[in-house]
């Protein structure tokens, strides 16, 4: 079974630039999560999708972050414009249903904002 795919694996940008991350969940998984993991901290949920609808985006900084999951499969997370404090690893996870025990994680994208 193929796992959760993410790209790119690494990205370095300057502040005020834009960046986008892509996630392809495990086939058939209806629920998709984006997490932000800052160095020395645990993951923080940014947004949760159920198919192509948003379940929770209460912790997404909507003035600069956006995410979409067209057709209920792949998802993109965008930051525009980036700030220094956005430097983190962005993790994508998916699950069959909205249940934490079934979350499978991708390798993450390490973003460095200079």
């Amino acid at each position: 079974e193929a796992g959760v795919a993410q790209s790119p694996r690494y990205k370095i940008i300057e502040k005020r630039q834009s960046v986008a991350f892509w996630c392809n969940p495990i086939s058939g998984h209806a629920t998709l999560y984006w997490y932000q993991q800052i160095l020395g901290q645990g993951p923080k949920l940014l947004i949760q999708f159920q198919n192509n609808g948003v379940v929770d985006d209460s912790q997404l900084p909507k003035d600069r972050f956006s995410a979409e999951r067209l057709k209920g499969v792949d998802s993109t997370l965008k930051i525009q414009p980036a700030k220094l404090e956005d430097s983190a690893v962005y993790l994508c996870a998916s699950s069959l249903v909205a249940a934490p025990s079934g979350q499978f994680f991708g390798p993450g994208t390490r973003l460095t904002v200079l």
Partner: protein
Amino acid sequence: AQSVSQHNHHVILSEAASLELGCNYSYGGTVNLFWYVQYPGQHLQLLLKYFSGDPLVKGIKGFEAEFIKSKFSFNLRKPSVQWSDTAEYFCAVNGKSNYQLIWGAGTKLIIKP
């Protein structure tokens, strides 16, 4: 609000030593509890979980954790660690009213061969 506290950010042990990583949570209701592990260069993966029943749960690779409700704790244990256990370990919790995980800051475990 729910929160998870992991007491040690870094732990260094020799092979064959016993391991206990602390995890405490704050939440007044019924909880599900998890330990995740991230080996160097690999993805986060589930180590073990507690939903209900026997408070002593066993996971992969010889790990176990005990849920002590009165202490709001879910400590991870292994009687004899191996060099391959070097990894970062995360405790997470969710209340049964929602499916979102609240994560601890993680504990980096280094096993000296």
